[in-house]
């Protein structure tokens, strides 16, 4: 087994990890700011993939699907927050989790009614079909695009949170919502926007994963478990943690698949168990709040 093969597999792992990072990021931002674990996150990821597919075929271009699906599903997420989740703030921390779990049943079955139970192929956009010669080997163009796009989205998110006034309000709101209200910030609107952002990121993850996985109503359940594993390893609520852990999980799956394919699905859970035994709060988690 030569080195270039391992490097190519590493790159594959980064592409896989990039989708995980985006998906887990949505989960972790919503938890960090609202204290809500969104159990419907996987279902919304799946709906994002379907919306991307539908919008792409409607407009005739993958790019419109990629742009519009996260916005549309993000708005749908805001509706969910406004109608359902908002009622549960201040109640037991388990309640939003249970509610979103029930919601995931409704969403998955709703998609089955509209699109059927069978998987639908998601065509790769024509500009990104084929492979690129990297000197040491050939790598799918689409996967390189996914890596690049996720890097850009991460950069924009980071700049928004760290350098803008909006980011300042969001970070302060996560620390102490009461003080923010006293200062005249409508914290309800901030939470609405955060939940929409989290769901939008799930949908973006779904559209990006579309051409790499088959699109079917069950695709969200595996993703939910993966996103949980990433969030747990990185530390619940930690954005840096989600990025590091997402890449870590993606790369381990990819490398293990090279040597022992039957262990590929199991390795991330083993990774999580090891991290938890050493650091129950996750790599970048803060002790006390969750662990």
């Amino acid at each position: 087994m030569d080195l270039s093969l391992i490097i190519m597999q590493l790159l594959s792992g980064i592409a896989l990890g990039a989708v995980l990072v985006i998906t887990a990021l949505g989960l972790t931002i919503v938890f960090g700011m609202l204290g809500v674990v969104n159990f419907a996150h996987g279902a919304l990821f799946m709906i994002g993939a379907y919306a991307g597919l539908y919008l792409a075929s409607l407009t005739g271009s993958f790019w419109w699907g990629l742009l519009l699906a996260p916005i549309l599903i993000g708005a749908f997420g805001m509706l969910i927050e406004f109608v359902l989740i908002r009622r549960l703030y201040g109640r037991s921390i388990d309640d939003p989790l249970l509610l979103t779990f029930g919601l995931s049943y409704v969403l998955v079955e709703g998609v089955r009614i509209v699109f059927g139970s069978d998987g639908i192929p998601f065509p790769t956009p024509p500009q990104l079909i084929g492979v690129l010669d990297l000197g040491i080997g050939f790598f799918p163009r689409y996967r390189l695009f996914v890596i690049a796009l996720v890097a850009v989205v991460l950069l924009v998110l980071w700049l928004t949170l760290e350098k803008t006034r909006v980011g300042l309000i969001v970070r302060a709101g996560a620390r102490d919502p009461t003080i923010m209200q006293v200062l005249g910030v409508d914290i309800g609107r901030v939470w609405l926007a955060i939940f929409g952002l989290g769901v939008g990121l799930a949908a973006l993850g779904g559209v990006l994963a579309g051409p790499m996985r088959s699109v079917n109503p069950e695709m969200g359940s595996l993703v939910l478990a993966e996103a949980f594993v990433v969030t747990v390893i990185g530390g619940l609520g930690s954005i840096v943690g989600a990025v590091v852990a997402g890449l870590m999980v993606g790369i381990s799956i990819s490398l293990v698949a090279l040597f022992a394919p039957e262990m590929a699905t199991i390795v991330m859970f083993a990774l999580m168990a090891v991290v938890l035994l050493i650091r129950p709060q996750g790599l970048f988690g803060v002790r006390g709040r969750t662990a």
Partner: protein
Amino acid sequence: MTHPSSGEALAKPAPGGLGRLLDHRVLLSIAVLAILPWLLPSKALAVNVLIYGVVVMGYNLLFGYTGLLSFGQAAFFGAGAYFTGIAIGRYGVPWFAAVAIAVFLSTCLAAVIGIISTRTRGIYFSMVTLALAQLVYYVALQASSFTGGENGLRGFTVDRINLFGLQVNFLDPVNKYYVLMAFAALAMWFQSRILNSPFGAVIEAIRENEQRARACGYDVERSKLVVFMLSGATSSLGGCMLALHLSIVPLDILHYQTSGMIVMMVLLGGARSFFGPFVGAASFLILEDVISLWTPHWQIFVGAIFVLFVLFLPKGIWGTLLDTLGIGKARR
């Protein structure tokens, strides 16, 4: 639900009237289960209520009484079923020994998962239990020479069983029901004993206020681990019952959707109540039966009903009923 409320678990004034009846909650529950096959439209449904009732009862010890929202109970339900099936089919173990072995091995599995997951708290615990249970699912999927992989476990049949020298035809639904009911009765007696013991008070204290329980000198971490194992053991017994009942074990039993179904059942019935799990299992299964008669998409209704319960009836059917009748919380 796991709302912290000031020490209601520890104050146990004896209620009069209806409340006194619930002193005999085990006998009352057994009496209801004894006539259940004649109350429900089919014997098969009654058997399922028994099986899922026991599984959910085990889960209720963890979620209802200790306040630990696990999303991985399917691992123990499935382990009980798989171990029973493998012991009978592969090693020719007699059925009752197979059940004992299966419960023992599942409890060991619960110890391993418990050691890892009880190190975490709150929502983190839910995510970790879900992930570890999915690990069990994938292991069962990969170890197909033992478990049959995607096709599930086949090749073991329980048709004629030996009850202390008495041959019982297990294919007869009524016989089967009462044999399985004996298991349910055993599980109920066991759980009632746990809840009435000092340990039962400790786990309820942990639910109400973990810090205070720790300050009182209780070993919170070890209690959580022990309750996790007891809960896993009870749920695995339900798995054994399923294996005996179906003579196959579908892989789906280990999926996290099954864990979710268990959570739904406990909430529909009423967490923190003794008979709630059986009410929850029965209402879920009846709901599934009725709705799937006129649409294959029953899950959309079950999901919506569950959402409504979380929003408006968090104590579930049985819990709300007991509240309405004003029956003391201690005697649930």
